[in-house]
């Protein structure tokens, strides 16, 4: 039987990968996918904890999170398209009109 800590460590690694990806990637879509990765890392943690506490709640939360992520994706991709229309680029470094 795999101890719960394994799942948690994996979840933490995935989450950190998401964070790092968000910090170093340049493409808006990739950034967005990094966030999805972070959310899914959390999902893994939820499922692991649900198993630990023998409660179904954690499993259900995952569905909620997935729904929310889907909604976010819809809005996010729309915004990214709008950015592409005004800037004609998806490079996040070029999105820097507003500063100071």
């Amino acid at each position: 039987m795999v101890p719960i800590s394994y799942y948690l460590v994996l979840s933490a690694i995935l989450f950190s990968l998401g964070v790092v990806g968000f910090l170093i990637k340049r493409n808006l879509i990739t950034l967005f996918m990094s966030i999805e990765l972070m959310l899914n890392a959390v999902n893994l943690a939820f499922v692991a904890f649900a198993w630990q506490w023998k409660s179904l709640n954690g499993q259900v939360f995952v569905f909620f999170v997935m729904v929310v992520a889907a909604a976010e994706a819809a809005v996010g991709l729309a915004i990214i398209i709008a950015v592409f229309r005004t800037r004609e680029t998806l490079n996040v470094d070029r999105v820097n009109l507003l500063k100071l």
Partner: protein
Amino acid sequence: MIQAVDYIRVLPEIVLTLFGVAIMMVEGALPPRASRKPLGWLAFVGTLAALAATVYQAGYPGMAFFGMVRVDSFSIFFHFLIAFIAALVVLSSFEYLDAQQIRGGEYYGLILFGAVGMVLMSSAVELVLIFIALEISSISTYVLAGFRRRAPSSIESSIKYFLLGSFATAFFLYGVALIFGATGSTRIYMIAETIQGGKHSAMVFTAVALMFVGIGFKIAAAPFHVWTPDVYEGAPAPVVGLMSTAPKAAAFAVLLRIFFAAATPGWFWPVWISAALSMTLGNISALVQDNVKRLLAYSSIAHAGYLLVAFAAARDIGISAAMFYTAAYALMNVGAFAVVSHFASAGERYVTLEDYAGLGRRSPVLAATLTIFLLSLIGIPITGGFFAKFYVFSAALKSNLVWLVIIAVVNSAIAAYYYLRIIVLMYMRDAREPAPTVQNVSAPLGVALALTVAATIYLGVLPGRVLDYASRGAALLVR
């Protein structure tokens, strides 16, 4: 079992959702060239109905939906505040949308959907529900921020808000997962019981820190405030009026619940540091701004800092001080942004400080109104801002947070400088040539401004009632 009374306890949410859906449906049915004003009025009626629902709901305190939602004076306070802000924002949007030539009825729908999320945030006592409510409010505001579709700055503000917002929410969710793992529950009151039972593992602490990120992002507390100036500068002005107040109020409600009701340990120093940082960074950065929206953005960061001072203070008085501050701050900020949105004109042309020069002579009433809000933001007596600061500082002093209060007072003095600068520009400078034209204030905006001025002064002259209500809410929260 779900009973009828459960639905009453989420009545404002239901009302707002129904009106929002109705707006979206009517929007589709309207001919493309038709004015979208009727939709605005529908939204306004919706917010009024939500206010009425809140008042009605006050008679039915208690838990609903298996202990996921809780209606008490605390949540009523925030429901009322948020619905009121939404009403004001709707009123001040009519003219703005005309001026910017934005024809999107869904604008009003999004305001209502956003309000649903915020209202739900303040009454939810279950962390996953809080997360969902947070996302409901966020997603609406992401879209609203980019509503000036043709303006690159607006889109940029939207994408920044979206990316950083989702980023922060992921941390919040991770925190929720960890606290679920540590305590086996996501219900705030059950978490409280477990924690008071003596389970203080490192996981709980980490969870609190991660959740603070998500909330800190929403309230723009340093160091999670970085998005604020850019987003506020680019987003449509009335939306900023909404964004800088209602979600903040809701997020403060969540923070109060997490910190005090769930009795989570060890938040004192992070809050202390965050408060001091927010005040200092916000005020110092505001000093060098030329753009009024950006300046007010930094000012809102600073105000989040003052508010966190109340959090660092002892429980009962700190909570009521924070609630009062939220209300006073929300009113004056909505008002200030309403004036800014009116003055900005088509394409948000006039948003720099120089544009405000000589406004006192060209449009005395508008300038006087803005002056009242600015004085309140400074914290001059007979305005709500004065008592808000006063209560927060006295609560902090009572808890012996002398250093924090000193930092806060010094910061207030710095802040007075840049607010006064606007006032000085308006009254003691001649307008530059050619002077920006000031349109006449339309009736709905006039009503919104009159309401905010009246409410700001009301809180400054007769703070007793609101404060008492807040105290009762606070007492219920900590029990």
